[in-house]
């Protein structure tokens, strides 16, 4: 008998057809669970998700969700989200109209042989060193998701002790509006 391999998931940095939803929610307990639960039960895929208190208005938070628009029609995702009572406003930013940024933090094992080349990688990618000790270096990059992807690829030549990415946040480019805006 052939035992099937367990499904380990696939790692890809950006779904084929992604959209960025910027969702303003009431800053109340359980709201993130409501949003995540909605995606799970409707079979919508979340690629990345970032949450933080929203600008000026302390009672709201902004959730930036990168959705896989292959998994469900975007219209359904937006309309179902809008039905959540705690969701105040949604804007959908098409990738070509978006300024997307993400933060990458990584701790890399170093030795005398590779320190110089690592510093080159840091320099050429626009990353910065934020912590150093005798055996390792922690670096950070704030940049486009593509730049983070590229850095991650280059770091494959080193021993990475830890690598964290925040998931992206986005704003429309100046002069571009969000596609669907359900206003507050």
């Amino acid at each position, binding site marked *: 008998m052939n035992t099937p391999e367990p499904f380990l998931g696939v790692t890809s940095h950006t779904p084929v057809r992604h959209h960025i939803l910027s969702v303003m929610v009431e800053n109340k307990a*359980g709201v993130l669970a409501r949003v995540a639960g909605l995606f799970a039960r409707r079979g919508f895929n979340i690629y990345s998700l970032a949450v933080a208190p929203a600008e000026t208005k302390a009672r709201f938070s902004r959730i930036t969700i990168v959705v896989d628009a292959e998994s469900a029609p975007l219209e*359904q995702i937006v309309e179902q989200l809008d039905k959540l009572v705690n969701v105040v406003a949604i804007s959908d930013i098409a990738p070509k109209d978006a300024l997307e940024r993400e933060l990458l933090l990584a701790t890399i094992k170093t030795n005398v042989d590779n320190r110089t080349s690592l510093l080159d990688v840091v320099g050429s990618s626009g990353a910065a060193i934020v912590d150093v000790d005798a055996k390792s270096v922690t670096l950070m990059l704030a940049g486009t998701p593509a730049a983070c992807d590229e850095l991650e690829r280059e770091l494959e030549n080193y021993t990475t002790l830890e690598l964290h990415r925040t998931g992206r946040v986005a704003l429309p480019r100046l002069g571009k509006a969000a596609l669907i805006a359900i206003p507050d």
Partner: protein
Amino acid sequence: MQLTGAQALIKSLEMEGVEVVFGLPGGAILPVYDPLIDSSIRHVLVRHEQGAGHMAEGYALATGRPGVAMVTSGPGATNIVTPIGNAHMDSTPLVVITGQVATAAIGTDAFQECDITGITMGITKHNFLVKSAHEIPRAVAAAFHIATTGRPGPVLVDVPKDITQSMMEWWYPESIEELDLPGYHPTVDLDADRVNQAIELIKDAERPVLYVGGGTLKSHASAQLLAFAERTGMPVVTTLMARGAFPDSHPQHLGMPGMHGMYSAVIAIQKSDLLISLGARFDDRVTGKIPAFAPNAKVIHVDIDKAEFNKVRRADVAIRSNVAAVLEAWDAERAMPQNLEVWWKEIDAWREAYPLVYDEPNDDGLLRPQFVVESIAKAAAPGTIVASGVGQHQMWASQFWKFEEPGTWVNSGGAGTMGFGVPAAIGAKAGRPDRVVWCIDGDGCFQMTAQELVTARAEGIPIKVAILNNAYLGMVRQWQEMFYDERYSEVYLSPDLPDYVKWAEAMGCVGLRATNVAEMHAAIATANSINDVPVVIDFRTDSSEKVFPMVAAGASNDDIMVHPRQRESQ
């Protein structure tokens, strides 16, 4: 005025005009049951919390007002999850109050703690965990506002015990702004452009069908529907959720569409060139195989919930509105389709060729379940409300009862919850004591919630229950017969175990049995003469009867199977 949180909770329910609460007390909700003694609100003490939820649903469906249930934390709360899910699927306005363990104990696995707001997140329109006594009025007012506006649905309010026990200065929200719901916008102004685009489609239509769903009942649009249908002459179909929205006796009514719909209703939709969906949601039980559903029809989709648009079927014109407002706007513009004479000729031919039929009642053998339903309907007072369980008997009730007005059909559609019938009938009767309420139930369904007849007897709520006792989980049996080579797996129940007459009597009801046509008529007459206690009739029906017409699950509606007797001619 200083009140305890518990007093504020009861007073808030009074402010919302609540006349009856269905519930059962326990530790965490105990403080609230004390001020209830001094309240004008009637409390109906159920025997199982599932009963409380379905009673509240039956109350809402029969009266159009929100149903209210109140239970304790932990198992009390989980017992009412099924009715909440049911109300969510059928967009029934419900407010459910649950007790919760004290705030400091939340998250510690305290006695009878459960995360009921987490459990019901996906099956409520919204829910609240109340964090202070001062917030109770706002939470209750918001719950009623959310449950009853836009697309209605269940809302749960979870109230920890320390909060109902603490003091607050009484206040009550006086405006919607005070409810603090910045993300909730249940209605919008009618979009005149879309109304006109729809009128353009109507003008071109030669084979239109008014596809009427539960939203038409929810928006109280029956009068507007009748006016629009009569002025335009269009045929009407009413889904399982919309029975009663348009009179069954009306010549333009083709009946119910869908898996067990009338042949003419199903085929008229299939052949239509314009489908006007009024508060319906293209459920799979209506559409059958989606790509084959009404393939040549343009679609006008009217719904208050815009998430329904393009979910299943792409709409040519989607109008976010309650149904009544759109029909009024179309009437004001005198929207008219083409001459429908040819269309009606076709429809009438289908109606004539394939009416609802069943085999003749036989005097010595078992009863035909369809004949039992027809006979009860014929002997029933006008305006009788009918509740049902889920299964074959439900389909026969929908097919063979003649519904003439809104609020007379109380049923579990989207969820298909067995055991809904008896408690829902009790709730309906509690809300409409002036009406006769029959529950057409299955033997399987009856066994799931029959204990609520004790509640009915104790509370003086005299419903009538007709068990179509076919000794089987009949609907499942039908599928096994038709699609699993008659390999019957775990569907036999026995006609005699339990003894339904003795069981009814033990619960303080009148129990009757009918095994042939003469006994059937006598039992119905006896039941109709009893108006002080609940009556249960055990009708022994033929277990081989199947529901027709039928569209097999996943099949195209074009492949509708009519009654075997009608097949040669098909």
